[in-house]
């Protein structure tokens, strides 16, 4: 039996950012959102561990009210309970980590906290470690593969310079990569069933975190203006290829990169 806490974030679809053409500011309200890609794999992995060892999967999301959309999806995939902590203001990862730590203490014990290696939009990749630091738990980051045996979790991490196999006693925090699994697609009956399941809401006061103070203020978020030269040469007509390649070589020489 394993009790698993999974974190999923209501994330921006970065391919479809709505950008104010004048100021280049990102219009968050108009940008479509979804469950984070790695977060979904964390949930899938939790469900597979539960199917194998028995247990319970609890999902926590800190985000705006509309995030309950992805919590329906979480239920459709098979989670046992889903919690939303509604927040409107920008919260830094430290604040989110404190919320997770408090939730863990109040609603636990859990054997495992599973998160995405990095969120789809901010991609900081630190929440798992911050939670582990607050709760004094071991962490296995960016896992490609997880095995649970004899009250120990073993996982393979893909890090900068190679692959690391780690082993940690439970409870532990594990974050996963995109490569770990292929998430299930819920069937229609699961989607219908999910609509009847209750999304639990908790406030910051419920978690005794009224005085949560952010350590970072995001002051200005602006889309990059692509400053590349964008000189485009057409070689769709095969007779042009020779000429176009010569031109390219000349440009690269002028740039001093050949």
């Amino acid at each position, binding site marked *: 039996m394993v009790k698993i806490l999974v974190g999923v974030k209501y994330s921006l679809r970065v391919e479809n950012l709505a950008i104010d053409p004048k100021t280049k500011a990102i219009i968050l309200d108009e940008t479509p959102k979804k469950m984070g890609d790695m977060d979904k794999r964390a949930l899938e992995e939790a469900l597979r561990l539960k199917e194998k060892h028995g247990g319970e999967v609890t999902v926590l999301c800190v985000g705006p009210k509309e995030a309950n959309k992805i919590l329906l999806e979480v239920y459709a995939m098979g989670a046992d309970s889903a919690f939303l902590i509604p927040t409107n203001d920008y919260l830094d990862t430290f604040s989110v980590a404190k919320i997770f730590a408090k939730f863990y203490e109040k609603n636990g014990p859990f054997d495992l906290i599973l998160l995405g290696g990095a969120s789809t939009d901010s991609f900081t990749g630190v929440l798992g470690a911050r939670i582990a630091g607050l709760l004094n738990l071991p962490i296995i980051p960016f896992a490609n593969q997880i095995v649970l045996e004899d009250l120990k979790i073993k996982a393979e991490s893909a890090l900068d310079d190679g692959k690391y196999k*780690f082993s940690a006693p439970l409870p532990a925090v594990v974050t996963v990569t995109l490569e770990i699994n292929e998430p299930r697609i819920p069937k229609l009956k699961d989607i219908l069933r999910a609509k009847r399941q209750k999304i639990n809401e908790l406030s910051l006061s419920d978690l005794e975190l009224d005085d949560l103070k952010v350590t970072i203020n995001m002051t200005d978020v602006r889309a990059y203006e692509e400053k590349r030269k964008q000189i485009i040469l057409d070689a769709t007509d095969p007779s042009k290829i020779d000429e176009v390649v010569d031109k390219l070589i000349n440009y690269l020489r002028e740039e001093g990169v050949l």
Partner: protein
Amino acid sequence: MSIMIYADKIDLYSELINAGNILREAFGGDILGIVIGENNVKSIDRIRKIGLSKIITFSANELNEFNPVLYAETIKNTLEEFDVRYVLMNSSYKNKILSGLLSSFMNSALVVDVIRLNVEDNKLLAERPVYSGKASAKEEINADKAILLIKSGVFTPMTEEKTEAEIIEKLIDTSKVSLELLEFSPKVVEEGVKLDEADVVVGGGRGLRKKEDLKLLKELASILGGAWGVTRPLAADYGWAPEWIGISGASINPKLYIATGISGQPQHTSGIRGSKVIVAINMDSEAPIFKFADYGIVGDLYQIIPKLIEKLKEIKEG
């Protein structure tokens, strides 16, 4: 009060010291270095005269390979002993985990992937790319302590010779650490140059139809004295290469990047921003990669790369 520098590659200390100098000019204090692992400690002569006042070394056997929990414990005690307020590290996956743990121990702010750093009215401001590198965010730090992970290549390395750092050797009790490293298998570079160190990178995407066609990339890269790389689907889904370029893979900073058969999704382009000149070859004139390119060729890579190889060979031999 002091500022601590830690890098997971010995060559990156000299970049971080220039970031440290910005903090020292604004807030005062000494800049210390911390070096972990036998191999790194053996190379400390390379960073002895770059402006660090002290270098604290840990060379226990157990520290030769990365273990986030063990490394965090190692650094934590030092931070307390030297009254460290700011920690600077290079931005890497390993350091994200390490700094995540440390920032919770220290109760500090943490900003990763920093590409600009300045102090205004005593407030520390860090800029970093967000949303898969499509936007940049300014983050104002509202805490007494902070850890900043600096992207490599942002600060120029310190080259001036400064007074020699004092070396302090330390030991650590590694017996209490819960996380155990069972095995480490380092990345192997098949042949030629490492992606993140190459001056020229030739990238290939799903425009390549089969694994054997990678030889087009390899041949072009070898003529240019560079490395070849791929997009995520080729590496992670098809298994054609051990790693890929982009937000969840390697970041590159070459003088020249040639993207072939790559559509230019933000997760890929966020890893190529550091390239000086970008060339894109794609059949589809609407492909987003052309917005990231200095020079774009609309056409079939199977016709263009061979021609490019042929002409570059002629130049080389002629």
